[in-house]
């Protein structure tokens, strides 16, 4: 698995950046959260963190000016063959920028009663729509969205009371969120979509597909098998209750196979969001409704759309044990050494599975 290290986009005005210096040496072992290269934009100087764990192979050198999305370097497992790396670097293309709809930009979309933040990248329909899990937001899709956007349009959205979307909830029932996603597709004038949902977002995606199968070209579930598999209720409760940094860090570490992946920034961002009182109140309602709705079996009949499930073997929140048998016609991919967040622990593999599945069902 090769993870590209891309020139970041710090603010809407940034179109290119200059490599100031590498903070980690070629061949160094790096891990998520470690600052590995310093970049200067017109307005600021900052460090770029490693997006994944592995060995660093710089591509750009100090003084080089790269467009946003340009390849600064790659991170790969120590065992990766040199020619494979070279092929990746040679084949790398910067995602087209300049057209408004292909430039990364958060937009706010009004769906009756709610303002939802979304990021749309790339071009080519039907688009992929990424739905984050409970307590997450669209930033968690960063590496997966960037990789998928090279071949097609990819939209990530913050559900209400998450990320940059409004916090008011007309209801916390699953059906409310399904209506909202269908409403979003209408507002975006997207007739058909490849849905990718993580955890609670996967349960919503499942509901959307069950109600409107004609609008869902394919469904990829991450860290969930739909409403038949309830999440660990203790985890949900602890996540809501954790009020201090150290408590929340311990809770977030349960999401990962490798607890070292929980960075200071990740804890701080999550804490900042959950401390907002309207958010916390909304999360309590969502959690109660989600726990009540899951495992009921009522929704067990799989939607009539192509479905794949991607799960980590180390998932402690919504584990699919060895005895789990997916519904007929549903493919199951188990990622060894990965926890509840495959999109962060194995982004390249998730992106490639989604891309292949979408291509087969477009």
């Amino acid at each position: 698995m090769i993870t590209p290290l891309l020139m970041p986009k710090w603010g809407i005005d940034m179109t290119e950046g200059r490599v100031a210096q590498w903070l980690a040496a070629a061949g160094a072992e790096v891990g998520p959260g470690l600052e590995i290269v310093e970049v200067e934009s017109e307005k600021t100087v900052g460090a770029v963190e490693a997006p994944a764990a592995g060995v660093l192979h710089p591509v750009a050198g100090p003084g080089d000016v790269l467009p946003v999305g340009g390849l600064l370097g790659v991170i790969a497992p120590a065992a990766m063959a040199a020619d494979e790396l070279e092929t990746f670097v040679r084949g790398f293309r910067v995602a087209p920028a300049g057209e408004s709809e292909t430039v990364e930009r958060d937009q706010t979309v009004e769906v009756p009663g709610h303002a939802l933040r979304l990021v749309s990248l790339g071009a080519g329909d039907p688009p992929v729509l990424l739905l984050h899990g409970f307590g997450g937001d669209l930033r968690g899709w960063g590496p997966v969205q960037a990789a998928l956007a090279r071949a097609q349009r990819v939209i990530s959205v913050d559900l209400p009371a998450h990320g940059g979307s409004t916090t008011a909830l007309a209801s916390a029932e699953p059906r409310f969120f399904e209506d909202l996603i269908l409403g979003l597709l209408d507002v975006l004038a997207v007739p058909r979509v490849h849905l990718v949902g993580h955890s609670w977002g996967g349960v919503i995606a499942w509901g959307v597909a069950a109600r409107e199968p004609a609008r869902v070209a394919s469904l990829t579930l991450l860290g969930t098998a739909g409403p038949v598999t309830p999440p660990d209720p203790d985890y949900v409760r602890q996540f809501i209750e954790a009020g201090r940094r150290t408590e929340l860090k311990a809770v977030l570490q349960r999401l990962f196979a490798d607890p070292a992946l929980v960075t200071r920034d990740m804890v701080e961002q999550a804490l900042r969001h959950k401390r907002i009182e309207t958010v916390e109140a909304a999360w309590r309602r969502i959690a109660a409704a989600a726990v009540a709705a899951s495992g009921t079996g009522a929704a067990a009949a799989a939607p009539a759309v192509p479905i794949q499930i991607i799960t980590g073997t180390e998932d402690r929140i919504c584990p699919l044990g060895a005895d789990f048998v997916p519904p007929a016609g549903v493919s199951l991919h188990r990622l060894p050494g990965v926890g509840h967040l495959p999109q962060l622990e194995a982004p390249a593999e998730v992106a490639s599975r989604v891309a292949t599945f979408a291509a087969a069902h477009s």
Partner: protein
Amino acid sequence: MRAMSVKSYRAAIREALEQEMLRDPDVILIGEDLAGGAGGGGEDDAWGGPMAVTRGLLAKFGRQRVLDTPISEAAFMGAAVGAAAAGLRPVAELMFSDFIGVCCDQILTQAAKYRYTFGGQDRIPLTVRTTIGAGQQLGSQHSQVLYPLFTSCAGLKVAVPATPYDAKGLLATAIRDDDPVVFCEHRLLYRMREEVPDDSYTIPFGEARIVEEGGDVTIVALSRMVHVAAEAVRALRAEGIACTLIDPRTTVPLDTDTIFDSVEATGRLVIVDEAGPRCGIAADIAAIVAEELFSALRAPIRRVTPPHVPVPAAPNLEALYLPDAARVMAAVREIVRR
């Protein structure tokens, strides 16, 4: 209708005041010129206090809840303590922390000791908002950083926010707290801007913010010095020195756990504070760490503070007086080489 927007430190404080006043009818504001011209020939709500923080709140909440006072800290601070004892939740504005001199009894002796004296039968849910800091050539009587004084006074809690985000969340916590809190606003930070949630939130007291993480040295900095230290940390990174930067955010309670964890890992500590070197927060934290973690230290603790002199008014002398990034870098380099 976004959940976040860019706000100044001043606007973040004003928003916390407004939201707490909406949330709890017992929250009142009291201080000099808060109503801006009320009672005189001037225009009501013309400026919103000397620091323009409370502007607009008179119009929203009226004279019953936004109280202008004569220029007598002794009188209005005493009134605020009494109002708190009687069940209100006053937020009193002490224009400059230097003015504590004329209301020491009200804050240090009465408010701070009331709960203890009466065996917890009553509490003083008072917030004293005050301003601190040099850098505006206001001279020795309007530039002091006096939170060490408040910190030393048992019975008070003390918040020293360095950012708009922290200011809003810590002020909400201060107002809801049932004990007296001194909330220290640095005047040079009033125009600092960042993304701050629009809705209400609180930040617990006694939880430090880890601003940067690095393995070579721990830097603890407070209030505006967090930004001075952060500038040093960025420059030191280019020299290959990785620093952890910790902002305690409150001095009472003090998050010693976060400081200890970091010093245990780095073995080196630099404390950067705009309060003076004698009986200051830097001396206090240095003593606590030396006492608790001496065996983890690989080099002497270094303090970066102004000298023990009154704050000069002349701009060149004031600049010389204040710690800057170069001084922080020199202190770090000196102990990292050991």
